[in-house]
């Protein structure tokens, strides 16, 4: 431990702690911009400058280590002037007329910083470095004119996701963050995961909005508009309306979407339960018939795009199950359309997802097994919040709403799909009971919960033996597992992989900010919902039993094959 003085207050911290972190202990919040906890500390933007006695120059607090006897001043005229200068330089190269129309308006770190530092005029005017807008992908828009070159996106893409789709290109005034050869994200091996959106402090990376298309469908009297939402949405949407992270807002969300004018409200969770049945059957079949093992989950479209680009040889390891919302879309336009007597042509399916990659997924040509697009539009959690605000709905004042039958019933096993390890836990609950016919005493598989990058478990299942499983989240961890499959050291039966660190609760479409603490709180909300539900095993969902009786027949049967399963495409490395 070392003791230092910050603004006259003594503070004790571990050696190696930065001044920035030490200052928090005495309730001093030093402003930052390029710094990103858990991801990046590079001392580049010079917004966090402080005066350290004995050093001639001001020092960036985000990288300067605390040491014994250090005396630090975080707020004097010299520091104020220097920080202001750093921000004024950024502001002077920024399209300042754009705030009112910017997707990040009111949620922008640069706006907040300019306000916190009391910037009231732009001192430097002149040519701006400009840049292009890349809106070619179905998921992500990059607006370089707003980029402040903090590199947070570059670091998350390279270090956390190991994709490196973007990097700093060129030099000096013409420096840009973009893919090689100035290509569009749409034309490179970007997974469209949107983790770069979550870390961008400004409006330079955002999702491609589909809000207007959805409003048009809602107000088109000839359309029957169905909405479904993924489990992770209800664990985070509240943050957009001022609730603390980890508040479950299922009831209010359901009331809100009904007020928006959707005709039916279904739950992606229903299809999550269905996924467990289909994927579980596929796994048993592979184990019994000597199919390709380990089998890997396929419900995370960013992960799918990753393996298609980087490990096309390993595609046979993927389960052929579509992701749950695609399944639900397909069933809405077949099973439900038939039941309700509605022409599937008139049905519009909108998915609210924590995910930007799912915008891409729903546009994949193979996602139309019924002859109609499974899902017409994917909107993110953030977009749903925007729609609720646009409609003038007082979210906090809403009574609890409900899901509609027959595609709205779900179990606790489905709802934990939103957290890393959830799919595995749900699968294990069902596998153990279905294979053995015995009732599980303890439904909580703690070994696959939590934020460790790679989690493993061995579960004895009567009649099969020891089932070895692994769970990975974040593409960096996925890559490690893929390398082990390649060199033959991954002797698992089943692997769950989620593209986003923490799983869907911190997907690229979720409210910002996201950090490990928030990941934990959102996941907790889902485990709590699971605990409170009467039915916690997918195979006990009565609506699932019914759909097999009335419509699907068998798991892996003819209908399932057409509607619920899919195929993959090997894509280029670059």
């Amino acid at each position, binding site marked *: 431990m070392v003791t230092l003085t910050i603004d006259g207050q003594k503070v004790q911290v571990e050696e190696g702690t930065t001044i920035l972190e030490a200052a928090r202990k005495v309730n001093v919040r030093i402003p930052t911009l390029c710094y990103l906890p858990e991801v990046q500390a590079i001392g580049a933007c010079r917004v966090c400058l402080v005066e350290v006695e004995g050093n001639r120059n001001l020092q960036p607090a985000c990288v300067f280590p605390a040491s014994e006897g250090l005396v630090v001043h975080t707020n004097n005229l010299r520091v104020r002037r220097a920080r202001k200068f750093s921000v004024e330089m950024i502001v002077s190269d920024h399209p300042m007329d754009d705030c009112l129309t910017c997707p990040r308006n009111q949620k922008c770190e640069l706006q907040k910083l300019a306000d916190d530092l009391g910037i009231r005029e732009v001192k430097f005017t002149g040519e701006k470095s400009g840049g292009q807008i890349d809106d070619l992908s179905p998921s992500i828009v990059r607006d370089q004119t707003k980029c402040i070159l903090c590199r947070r996106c570059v670091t998350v893409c390279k270090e956390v996701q190991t994709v490196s789709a973007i*990097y700093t290109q060129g030099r000096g005034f013409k420096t840009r963050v973009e893919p*090689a050869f100035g290509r569009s994200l749409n034309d490179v091996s970007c997974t469209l995961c949107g983790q770069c959106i979550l870390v961008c402090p400004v409006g330079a990376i955002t999702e491609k909005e589909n809000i207007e298309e959805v409003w048009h469908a809602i107000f088109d009297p000839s359309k029957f508009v169905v909405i479904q939402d993924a489990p992770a949405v209800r664990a985070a949407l509240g943050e957009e309306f001022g609730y603390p992270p980890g508040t479950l807002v299922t009831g209010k969300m359901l009331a809100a979407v009904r007020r928006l004018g959707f005709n039916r409200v279904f739950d992606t969770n229903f299809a999550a339960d269905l996924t467990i049945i289909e994927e579980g059957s596929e796994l048993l079949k592979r184990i019994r018939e000597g199919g390709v093992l380990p089998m890997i989950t396929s419900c995370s479209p960013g992960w799918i795009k990753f393996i298609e680009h980087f490990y096309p040889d390993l595609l046979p390891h993927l389960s052929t199950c579509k992701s749950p919302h695609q399944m639900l879309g397909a069933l809405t336009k077949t099973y439900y359309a038939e039941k309700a007597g509605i022409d599937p042509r008139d049905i519009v399916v909108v998915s609210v997802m924590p995910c930007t990659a799912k915008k891409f997924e729903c546009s994949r040509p193979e996602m139309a097994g019924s002859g109609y697009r499974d899902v017409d539009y994917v909107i993110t959690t953030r977009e749903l919040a925007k729609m609720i605000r646009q409609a003038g709905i007082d979210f906090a004042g809403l009574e609890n709403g409900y899901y509609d039958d027959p595609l709205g019933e779900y179990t606790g096993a489905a709802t934990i799909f939103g957290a890393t390890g959830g799919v595995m836990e749900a699968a294990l609950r069902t596998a153990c009971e279905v294979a053995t016919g015995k009732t599980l005493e303890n439904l909580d598989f703690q070994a696959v919960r939590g934020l460790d990058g790679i989690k493993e478990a061995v579960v004895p299942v009567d009649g099969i033996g020891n089932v070895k499983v692994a769970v990975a989240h974040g593409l960096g961890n996925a890559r490690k597992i893929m390398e082990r499959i390649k060199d033959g050291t991954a002797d698992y039966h089943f692997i769950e992989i989620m593209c986003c660190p923490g799983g869907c609760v911190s997907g690229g479409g979720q409210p910002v900010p996201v950090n490990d603490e928030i990941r934990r709180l959102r996941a907790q909300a889902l485990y709590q919902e699971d605990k409170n539900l009467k039915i916690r095993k997918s195979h006990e969902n009565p609506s699932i039993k019914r759909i097999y009786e009335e419509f699907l027949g068998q798991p892996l049967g003819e209908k399932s094959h057409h509607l619920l399963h899919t195929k993959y495409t090997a894509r280029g490395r670059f």
Partner: protein
Amino acid sequence: MENQGCSCAPINEEDLYPKIEEIINQHRGNQNALIMVLHKAQNLFGYLPGRVQEMVSLGLGVPLSEVYGVATFYAFFSMVPKGRHEIKVCLGTACYVRGGQKIVEYLEKGLGVRVGDTTKDRRFSLNEVRCVGACSLAPAVLVNDDVYAQVDPAKVDEILVKYE
């Protein structure tokens, strides 16, 4: 003044790929060799073709975006093939004041390229330089290693015909 172009057949770019492959193989998997390998490629090809950057990326295990990032950061790498002759217009203060910029504009128009680019037939690449130390001769233009003094647009045409 002698034309410096050699009389042999123009280099066939295809023939260079096995050579760069060999260089990359010597450094396979070594990310630290990036700048050195790019350097060798630049000398071999006269520029860094996209295909070469992809080969370097795969060979050294450096993501393509990063290879390109390094290639565009350092001024000695170029993304476009060099012409057989390099025109450099001096834009040091003296040359600038005496009309260097006008010559640049005239050349851009006449050759149909921007500064930093190469003509389609690869005859010329056009570049600017900062002060070549010929201020008394301003404005100065260099073609390869030949210095031309007090150039004006009319004189430019006369000069260029000497270089095929």
